[in-house]
């Protein structure tokens, strides 16, 4: 039989072959190839011989069922064998069956006086071509396996009843006509019907047999086998009874007695069952008619044949379609069943996943109702699942926050995509007992049979928030600690203008005591008082930001300005320590996205660090602050003129609790690092020999707001 699968090399051999190819040993490969060819030739010979033998035997069996005197056959089964084989064989193997057909056709008519060998061979050619045409037609119009659906079955019926019989018998009829045969017309009709009937009845049965033979016998259901046996027995008994009863005038209706059993076969065993049952009926009715028994034995043999053929066609056509329909329905049903089971398994898996995750999970529908809540949700919020299902999901938030999640959910359903809810900094959940806790919620769209759902993953942020709070405290405390180191200088910075104000006021008072007070001088004094007041409040304003424990406020800001502010805050302290602060700022604005206070804190830490590094320095004490744009970054350098830092200490400088100072906590630089990294930047220290230490940090440059600028230009344009 045709089966490419067995030709495939086994896995281990394939592996070996690969190895040999790599090593360049071709000999074994050649040997294998030769072996394969031999195998192939053997299989071809076997297929040719097997097919020829089967065809020959079927042809002989058909000869037994011929009606004398014109040797007519009711249905021609050998053609169905060719049909079945070509239906399942790959095109490259068709020549096997062509050869087999020629051999068998020749052998079947060997010694027949009526039909010479040349005619037999010629009709074999026509037959092969006709079957090939039928197979091409089916392959073109039927989808997948023939007979599997009603549509495929219709394609098969068209091929079997029209195309193949026509293409097989017409050339033979023409030959007969050419030979001067007197009975061409009746013969033509009967042989046409004979071929059609044989194709129609036997092809499904033979095809299923061949397919099973090719795929190996599969163990069938025991009860199915018993049922098949019972059906066969019943069919045989009833057929014997019907077709052996002598013809009794007008009682042909009895011939429909096997009908229920045929339907049984069609509905329960589908196409192959119907086909086998029809074969049984066809053989029994024909056999009995030939022997003068049954309902088809009354008239002349020509009449018998035609009547039988019409009867069998009338029964088999609807039966095969019904069988195909039954098969289609059963397969569709089992597919549906499988899909349902698969869906149930999927749902179960989903449920297991949802229940076993450490997060609370909820599903929310378009109208904002909770349709699913897992055990973690119960645990987190203190509600039982039943108490949550069907409830509006805002219920898990405190009253004052509810509009925010509701708005987020509306936006989510308007444009379904992964998103969070509300303001993460402030979002709180409400437990059943009325307590609140910080949480974070992510929404993911989920398509469900009931429409789009929001899958909400809830994370309890209590710990996270606490850690953030602790860190904020630490950052603030460290800032205060740095500032407290130069409270004296800060007091001086404020005292100076205050002292000036007081003296000015005193002077004004004294001047006004004069008989003719110099009012111009008094006015100048008042102007000076105002400017000194502003100067003092400016210092206080700069300090207030640093002292406050405020929320982080990120905004675009110019690092040059930050450096300038810090240098002002530290001016007095620098003076006190005899340090000169030098600014070398970039001419371009150095805009970064950041929190002003935190960046000032970083600079304070680095500068004070520099001050302390120079405490023992005898020569010039200088701290140089520089900003520089470089490759999409702003680099800020704080360079001192101290003794520098040994290279082995450089990498450890920013570690927590690493301090070289006696009183240092070792927190300043560590906090500076965490603040810089929070801004998406990096911080490092350099100490080139002989030029003090350089503490540097780099922050990503905020791209200039191009649209805003062009908008501004546009509005200026429009104003003109």
């Amino acid at each position: 039989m045709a089966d490419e699968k067995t030709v495939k090399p086994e896995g281990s051999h394939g592996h070996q072959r690969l190895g040999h190819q790599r090593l360049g040993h071709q000999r074994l490969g050649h040997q294998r190839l030769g072996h394969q060819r031999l195998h192939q030739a053997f299989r071809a010979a076997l297929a040719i011989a097997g097919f020829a033998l089967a065809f020959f035997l079927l042809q002989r069996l058909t000869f037994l069922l011929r009606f004398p005197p014109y040797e007519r056959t009711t249905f021609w089964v050998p053609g169905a064998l060719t049909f079945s084989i070509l239906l399942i064989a790959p095109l490259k193997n068709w020549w096997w069956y062509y050869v087999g057909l020629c051999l068998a056709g020749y052998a079947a008519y060997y010694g027949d006086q009526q039909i010479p060998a040349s005619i037999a061979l010629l009709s074999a050619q026509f037959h092969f071509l006709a079957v090939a045409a039928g197979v091409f037609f089916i392959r073109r119009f039927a989808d997948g396996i023939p007979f599997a659906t009603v549509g495929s079955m219709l394609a098969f019926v068209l091929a079997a009843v029209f195309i193949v019989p026509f293409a097989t018998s017409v050339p033979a009829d023409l030959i007969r006509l050419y030979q001067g045969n007197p009975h061409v017309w009746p013969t033509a009709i009967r042989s046409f019907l004979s071929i059609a009937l044989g194709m129609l009845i036997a092809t499904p049965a033979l095809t299923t047999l061949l397919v099973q033979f090719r795929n190996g016998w599969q163990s069938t259901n025991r009860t199915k086998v018993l049922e098949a046996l019972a059906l066969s027995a019943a069919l045989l008994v009833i057929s014997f009874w019907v077709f052996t009863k002598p013809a009794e005038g007008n009682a042909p209706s009895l011939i429909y007695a096997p009908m229920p059993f045929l339907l049984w076969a069609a509905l329960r065993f589908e196409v192959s069952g119907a086909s086998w049952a029809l074969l049984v009926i066809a053989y029994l009715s024909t056999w009995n008619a030939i022997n003068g028994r049954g309902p088809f034995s009354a008239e002349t043999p020509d009449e018998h044949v035609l009547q039988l053929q019409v009867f069998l066609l009338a029964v088999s056509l609807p039966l095969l379609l019904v069988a195909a329909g039954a098969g289609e329905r059963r397969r569709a049903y089992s597919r549906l069943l499988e899909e349902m089971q698969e869906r149930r398994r999927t749902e179960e898996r989903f449920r297991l996943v949802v229940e076993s995750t450490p997060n609370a999970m909820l599903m929310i529908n378009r109208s904002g109702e909770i349709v699913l809540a897992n055990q973690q949700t119960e645990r987190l919020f203190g509600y039982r699942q039943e108490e949550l299902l069907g409830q509006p999901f805002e219920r898990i938030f405190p009253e004052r926050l509810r509009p925010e999640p509701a708005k987020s959910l509306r936006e989510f359903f308007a444009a379904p995509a992964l998103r969070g809810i509300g303001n993460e900094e402030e979002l709180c959940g409400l437990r059943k007992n009325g307590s609140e806790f910080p949480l974070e919620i992510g929404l993911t769209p989920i398509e469900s049979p009931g429409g789009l759902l929001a899958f909400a993953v809830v994370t309890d942020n209590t710990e996270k928030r606490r850690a953030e709070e602790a860190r904020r405290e630490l950052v603030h405390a460290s800032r205060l600690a740095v500032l407290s180191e130069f409270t004296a200088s800060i007091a001086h910075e404020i005292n100076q203008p205050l002292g000036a104000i007081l003296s000015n006021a005193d002077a004004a008072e004294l001047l006004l005591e004069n008989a003719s007070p110099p009012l111009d001088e008094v006015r100048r004094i008042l102007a000076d008082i105002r400017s000194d007041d502003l100067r003092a409040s400016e210092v206080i304003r700069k300090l207030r930001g640093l002292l406050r424990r405020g929320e982080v406020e990120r905004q675009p800001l110019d690092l040059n300005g930050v450096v300038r502010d810090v240098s002002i805050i530290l001016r007095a302290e620098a003076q006190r320590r005899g340090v000169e602060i030098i600014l070398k700022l970039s001419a371009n604005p150095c805009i970064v996205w950041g929190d002003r206070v935190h960046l000032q804190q970083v600079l304070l830490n680095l500068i004070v660090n520099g001050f302390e590094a120079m405490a023992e320095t005898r020569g010039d004490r200088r701290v140089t602050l520089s900003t520089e744009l470089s490759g999409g970054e702003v680099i800020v350098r704080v360079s001192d003129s101290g003794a520098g830092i040994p290279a082995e200490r450089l990498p450890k400088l920013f570690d927590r609790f690493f301090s070289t100072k006696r009183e240092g906590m070792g927190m300043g630089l560590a906090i500076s690092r965490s603040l810089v990294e929070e801004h998406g930047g990096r911080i490092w220290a350099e100490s080139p020999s002989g030029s003090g230490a350089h503490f540097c940090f780099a922050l990503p440059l905020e791209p200039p707001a191009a649209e805003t600028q062009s908008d501004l230009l546009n509005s200026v344009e429009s104003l003109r």
Partner: protein
Amino acid sequence: MTETIPVVHVIDDDDSVRKAVTRLLKAAGYEAQDYANAGDFLLAAPTAASGCLVLDVRMPGPSGLELQAALKRQGNCLPIIFLSGHGDIPMSVQAIKAGAVDFLTKPVQRQALLAAVSHALEINRATSAERARSEFLQSCYQALTEREREIFRMVVQGRLNKQIASALGIAERTVKAHRAQVMEKMQVTTLADLVRVAGELGLEAA
């Protein structure tokens, strides 16, 4: 003894403080002069002028204390009032030990400042009067001849004319004439006055 108008010299690096303090002093009727740093003062200030200094302790360049030390080395004894941004005790102790008149913290009260300035000027006036008299006596003393100085020392030691004449081997009349010359040159009329002048000149020890 010449009478000069005392000048209050204000030295502070902070423009507004300096300006305000100067203004206040002028309003109070003083002659005031301001300098942004110690160097400016040293270049401009006439050493003999009378007056006082109002000096900021903490300044870039030479600090207030450093200026105080420099002036002392020069023998310039203008009294100094220190101003400080904040009560820096070690610094104030050092300043007072070195002879500062007062140590005031900013913002400075008017009464405190004016009182300190007036006190400082009084001290200055006193010291400059003393100084003028001693300079005058010195110049008188310089006018004496060697013999006259010898007789001056012996007279204030309480020796009699006869004793001096025998000690020097000259006539008693000659001693008398020298003695009259010394009294005249030293612009005194009595022996008691001459003894006091000798005390002021520090002659007893010799």
